[in-house]
C-alpha cells in the first residue's frame, strides 16, 4: 500500500507540505549541510593521509542529518550511530571531537550535549532512546529522545524490541531511519521484503512517516511534527528518510565492487541535497547570490580549524584508559594501571605510542 505512506516533501515540484521553516533557520540548515559536506571531504582526505583511522562519511545524507537535528531542542536526547556526526554537530558536539574519535582518541561526545556515545553495534542504541524517553516522561521533563540508524538497522532484533516497547509505553521517542539504499554491500531490496521501511511502523502501533531524505526542510518539519506528537503524549514515530549514500560505507570500503554506477549518478547532481536546498533558497531570495559561495568558503576555514584542534590535541596517556571505566577505580584495576605505567611509563612520558 504505497499510498498509505506518501513521501513528505517541502522542496520541489511535487511538494505536498507547505514550507513552514523560518528563513533564518533554513539558512542555518543550509550552512550546516555545507559544513558537513566540507567536513566529510576533509576527513576522507585525512584518512587517506593516514592521519585518522577508518571514517564513515555521510556524503549525500546532509539533508537528513542536519534537517532532522535542527528540529530538536537542546534538552532532547540523541542516540546516534557511527555515521551521524552531522546530527551530532547540530546538537552541540564540535567537529573536533569527531576527528578525535576517528583518531582513536576517544569519545565523540562533548561535555554538554545530550548525545550518547555513537553506537557501533547496529540498532543496539534504539532501546536506550526508548529508556531515555521513558525517563523524561516519568520525570515530567518536556523533552524527547531520538535515535538515528540506517536501513540495515531495521533488520536487527533491537529495532523490533525498541519499537514495540515504545508503542506499548507510548514513549516520547523518534526513530529516525535513514534509508540510504545500502547496508555496506547489501541493497535495501535484500534487507527486507517490504517495499518501504516506514510500513514497519504498523507492526507496533506507532506513527509512521516517510520523508524525502534529500529535502532538508521536509526532514526538519517531519521531525518537528513527530516531536510535537511525542510531547503531546501521542507516542513515538518511525520516520523513514529516503536518501542515498553517495560515498563509500567507510573509507575502508569500495562500493565499486557491488554498486552500479548508474544508480549513483541518479542521486548526484540535481538530487544532491545541498544543491536542492541552495536552488530552493536562492529561488525564494532567502539566499542572496554569492552567499552560498561565501558559506562554502567559511565552512572550509571553520572545518580546518576544527580539524587542526584535533590534530594538535595532546597525546593520550595510559591512565586515561582506566579513568572512567568506573566512577571509582577498584583496587585490582588500579594495580593494573600502575603496572602498565611502570613498564610503559617512559614511553607515555615521551608522548605516548601514538604521538
Amino acid at each position, binding site marked *: 500500500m504505497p499510498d498509505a505512506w506518501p513521501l513528505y516533501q517541502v522542496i520541489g515540484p511535487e511538494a505536498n507540505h507547505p514550507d513552514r521553516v523560518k528563513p533564518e533557520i533554513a539558512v542555518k540548515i543550509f550552512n550546516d549541510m555545507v559544513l558537513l559536506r566540507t567536513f566529510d571531504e576533509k576527513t576522507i582526505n585525512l584518512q587517506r593521509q593516514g592521519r585518522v583511522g577508518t571514517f564513515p562519511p555521510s556524503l549525500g545524507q546532509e539533508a537528513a542529518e542536519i534537517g532532522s537535528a535542527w528540529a530538536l531542542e537542546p534538552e532532547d536526547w540523541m542516540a546516534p550511530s557511527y555515521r551521524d556526526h552531522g546530527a551530532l554537530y547540530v546538537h552541540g558536539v564540535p567537529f573536533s571531537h569527531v576527528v578525535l574519535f576517528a583518531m582513536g582518541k576517544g569519545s565523540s561526545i562533548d561535555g554538554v550535549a545530550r548525545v550518547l556515545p555513537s553506537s557501533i553495534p547496529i540498532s543496539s542504541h534504539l*532501546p536506550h532512546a526508548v529508556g531515555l524517553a521513558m525517563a523524561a516522561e516519568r520525570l515530567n521533563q518536556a523533552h524527547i529522545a531520538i535515535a538515528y540508524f540506517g536501513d540495515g538497522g531495521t533488520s536487527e532484533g533491537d529495532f523490533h524490541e525498541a519499537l514495540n516497547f515504545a508503542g506499548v509505553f507510548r514513549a516520547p521517542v523518534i526513530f529516525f531511519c535513514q534509508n540510504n539504499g545500502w547496508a555496506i554491500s547489501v541493497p535495501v531490496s535484500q534487507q527486507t521484503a517490504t517495499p518501504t521501511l516506514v510500513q514497519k511502523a504498523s507492526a507496533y502501533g506507532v506513527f509512521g512517516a516517510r520523508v524525502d531524505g534529500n529535502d532538508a526542510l521536509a526532514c526538519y518539519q517531519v521531525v518537528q511534527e513527530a516531536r510535537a506528537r511525542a510531547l503531546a503524549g501521542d507516542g513515538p514515530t518511525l520516520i523513514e528518510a529516503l536518501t542515498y549514500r553517495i560515498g563509500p560505507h567507510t573509507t575502508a570500503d569500495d562500493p565499486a565492487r557491488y554498486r552500479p554506477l548508474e544508480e549513483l549518478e541518479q542521486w548526484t547532481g540535481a538530487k544532491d541535497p545541498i544543491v536542492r536546498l541552495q536552488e530552493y533558497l536562492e529561488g525564494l531570495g532567502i539566499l542572496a547570490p554569492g552567499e552560498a559561495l561565501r558559506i562554502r568558503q567559511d565552512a572550509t576555514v571553520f572545518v580546518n580549524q576544527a580539524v587542526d584542534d584535533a590534530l594538535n590535541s595532546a597525546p593520550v596517556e595510559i591512565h586515561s584508559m582506566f579513568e572512567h571505566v568506573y566512577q571509582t577505580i577498584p583496587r585490582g584495576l588500579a594495580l593494573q594501571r600502575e603496572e602498565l605505567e611502570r613498564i610503559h611509563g617512559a614511553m607515555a612520558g615521551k608522548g605516548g605510542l601514538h604521538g
Partner: protein
Amino acid sequence: MAEMNAVTAINQTLSELMAEDARVVLLGEDVGKNGGVFRVTEGLWNRFGARRVVDTPLAESAIVGSAIGMAIGGLRPIAEIQFMGFLYPALNQIFSHMGRIGQRSSGKFRVPLVVRIPYGGGIRAPEQHADSAEAMLVHTPGIKVVVPSTPYDAKGLLYAAVEDPDPVIFLEPIKLYRLGRMEVPQGRVNVPIGPARVARSGDDVSVITWGAMNHLAMEVAEDLARTAGISVEIIDLRTLKPMDTETIAESVQKTGRAIVLHEAPRTAGLGGEVVASIQEDAFWWLKTPVRRVTAADVPYPPFAWEDWYMPTKERLAGAIREALAD
C-alpha cells in the same frame, strides 16, 4: 528485627528503596501485577503503581537496553531478568553498552542500573531455568557483579547496588530464595560491594565459593569437623567483580590448601579465575594443588540428572580429603 527468607528480604529492600527515592523504578516480565514468578516483587505494584513497577513486553534486550537509557536519563532502574537462561538475548546490551558507556563517554554518563537475575540450579526446574553464567559477566569490564547467599547480605548488597553509580548485576540464587530465614533489620543495611565474607573460620583448607554452593560448603564443613576433625574455612565471595582477592589470599596463606566450588560447568568457569588469583597471591604457601569442584562440562541436564550434574557433598568432601592427603 524480623526473621525472614531471602525473597522477603529482597522484597522489603525494594520496597524501602522505592519509598525513599522516587527515581527507583522496577521493570521486567511479570514483576508487576503478578509480583514476579518468585514473588520477589509482591505487593510493590499495588503500593507504587504501574508507572514505577513496570510489566514489560517479553523482550530482554529491550528490558536491559531501555533500563540503560533510563539510568542515563536520571532514573534508578532495577531491571529483572526472569531467569539467568533468559539473559542471553540481552547480552549485547551488557557486553556492548552497560559497562562501556562510562569509558566511551569519558565519564560524562554513568549507568546506575541494577539488573536482578534469579540464577542457579538444584530446584528441579524445567530445562534452561537453572543456568549459572556468572563467569562471562565477571569477564565484562565496567560492571560489578554481586551474589548474596544470605537474606542479610541480600538486603545489604541490594542497597549498595542501587546506590552504586555504576551498573551492578545482582544474582539471586534461586535455591536459597526460601531456604533458611535469618534476622534482617528494617532500613538500610551496610554490606559494601567488594569484601568477601569469611562464612566459617578454619585452619586446614579454604573453600572459596558463592551463592547456593555456600550452603553445601557449610554442610560439608560441619560434617567433616564432626566426623574427621577437619577444620574448613569457607570464603563466601559475595562480590564476584571486583573480586576480593585479598581475603582469598589471606585465607589460603593460612591454610595452604584451597578448593574452589561452583555450580557452573568447570571449563572456563569462574573457578579458573580464583585458581589464578591464588596462584598469583599465595603460590608459596600452597601445600597441594588448588582443586575445583564444579558442574560437569555438559549443558545443564533435565532435572533427573541434576543431583549428579551439580557439585555434591561427596565430591566436595572427597576433594577436601584429597587436598589434606598431600
